């Protein structure tokens, strides 16, 4: 811990109530109310990301006699909400990189292998090493897969080269994107932004990168040298109408053009050309800079299992079928889907994980203790929408797209420093507390 962190902490602790309230956006819960179950269930958690670790921590505490097994080959843990700040050139990759081992609770067995197969009929999962692990209850928390290669000509190794940025692939790629943004601002030209058509994690991030690029260009006195175009995948820049209206107005104010119903389908990195599928046919645009957001889908082990939706809009990408209020699998009631992999509308954010995990854990605890499960998830998700360095809008909404602000005094559609404060200073501590099942 450096002296700067100490000073940060000093200020945070001194203004304890306010700082805490801010930091806990979307993270408030009644930990003191947690119930326990003495059931000796075998619980498997597939995935050690935000959802998996948070589940492991809560289950360990609330079901002390259960056998809990966590399965994931991944050793590093990334604070993904911080990738935007890395791409803004404000944070370093080290600021968002930790070790999973530091968050696996005592008393939880961690099998450091990937899940290769789900066999819900036999109530077992098979690891990449061939180990078969039986369960009474399974939590699918594998996260999702970034499918860069679904865009013809695109490959994650291109990030940081030829004017290509993409903050999603990891901390190093987010840092390479920061450098690509800076080079673009220096050289000028046309910058393209956008998002994929399907479900995606942190749907605000493509907008944030657009705003950050605009702001950095203005600060360097180079805004006239760059043209920015946001290619929305459908007729809106954001799924929640009031947010769409606000972002559209901000883009107009800041001279960011918008193309609607443009989905990136192919790229020619050498020629710097991007081809978009549109309702009227393919459109090819030249660019000097492009921020690529890959299509996202379920990992193969999930897709190839019986767990995904079989029909409907969430079936194609393999999202796990789940009842939206309980995240329970309707065909396999001993299976729950939590986090990015859950086949529910919206909700692919850490803020959603924060609210999902207590719901599924409390319901399992209640059920195994002979009580009636009553907890429900309302689809809460949150996006501190950075609109410039030092300003953000704290946008929180539910399944229905209704804005549900946690703090009545913070207007969700107002650009405020206090919302930026939450993004820059508050979220990481809250996230880490969430991983330990404490927030």
């Amino acid at each position: 811990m450096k002296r700067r962190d100490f000073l940060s902490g000093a200020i945070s602790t001194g203004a304890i109530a306010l700082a805490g309230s801010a930091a806990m956006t979307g993270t408030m819960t009644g930990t003191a109310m947690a119930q326990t179950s003495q059931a000796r269930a075998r619980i498997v958690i597939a995935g050690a990301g935000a959802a998996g670790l948070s589940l492991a921590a809560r289950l360990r505490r609330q079901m002390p006699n259960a056998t809990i097994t966590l399965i994931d080959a991944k050793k590093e843990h990334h604070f993904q909400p911080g990738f935007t700040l890395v791409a803004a050139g404000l944070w370093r990759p080290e600021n968002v990189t930790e070790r999973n081992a530091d968050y696996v609770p005592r008393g939880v067995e961690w099998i450091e292998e990937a899940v290769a197969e789900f066999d819900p009929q036999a109530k077992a999962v098979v690891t990449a090493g061939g180990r078969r692990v039986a369960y009474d209850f399974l939590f699918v928390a594998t996260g999702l897969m970034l499918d860069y290669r679904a865009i013809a000509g695109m490959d994650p190794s291109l990030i940081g080269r030829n004017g290509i940025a993409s903050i999603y692939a990891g901390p190093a790629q987010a840092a390479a994107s920061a450098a690509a943004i800076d080079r673009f601002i220096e050289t000028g030209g046309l910058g393209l932004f956008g998002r994929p058509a399907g479900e995606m994690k942190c749907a605000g991030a493509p907008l944030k990168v657009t705003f950050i690029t605009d702001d950095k260009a203005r600060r360097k006195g180079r805004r006239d040298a760059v043209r920015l175009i946001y290619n929305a995948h459908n007729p809106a820049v954001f799924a929640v109408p009031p947010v769409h209206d606000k972002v559209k107005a901000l883009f107009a104010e800041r001279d960011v053009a918008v193309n609607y119903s443009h989905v990136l389908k192919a790229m020619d990195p050498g020629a710097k050309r991007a081809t978009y599928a549109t309702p009227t046919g393919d459109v090819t645009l030249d660019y000097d800079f492009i921020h690529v957001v890959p299509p996202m889908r379920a990992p193969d082990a999930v897709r190839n299992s019986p767990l995904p939706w079989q029909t409907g809009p969430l079936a194609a990408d393999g999202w796990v079928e789940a009842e939206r209020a309980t995240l329970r699998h309707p065909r396999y009631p001993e299976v729950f889907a939590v986090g990015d992999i859950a086949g529910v509308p919206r909700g692919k954010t850490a803020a959603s994980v924060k609210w999902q995990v207590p719901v599924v854990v409390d319901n399992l605890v209640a059920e195994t203790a002979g009580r009636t499960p009553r907890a429900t998830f309302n689809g809460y998700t949150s996006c501190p929408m950075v609109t410039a360095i030092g300003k953000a809008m704290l946008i929180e909404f539910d399944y229905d797209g209704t804005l549900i602000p946690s703090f009545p005094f913070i207007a969700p559609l107002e650009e405020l420093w206090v919302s930026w404060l939450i993004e820059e200073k508050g979220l990481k501590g809250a996230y880490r507390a969430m991983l330990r099942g404490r927030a």
Partner: protein
Amino acid sequence: MSTFDPMTLFFIIYESIGVWLWLMLALALVLTAGIVMSALKLYRADLPMRRPLTAALVVGLIAAIAATFAVPAWTLADLGALSGALDYAFAFLFALVPGAIVGALVFMLAARRCTSQNAAMA
């Protein structure tokens, strides 16, 4: 906010700053003890607390106001990021921390000076 939980707040702060939390609490205790001891010294010497207290409040407030303008930089933003009453209010609330530290130190120093002067005159 209806589900606000002090334990959650504690864990979030602890996860944000780690062991520095305990050092900060220790600093707060030391300053509080210093204020109490200084106040007791004034009381035993039958001296009024008004002057040290006024000095502490004035200097502490000035320090807090000055720190308010530094708070955005702490969040990697510039002063122009503060855009409304709410932003300024939050920045000032954060700035009260260094303001309180400065105020506590001034109170102790002023109280010490008062008691020393009183002892010299006696």
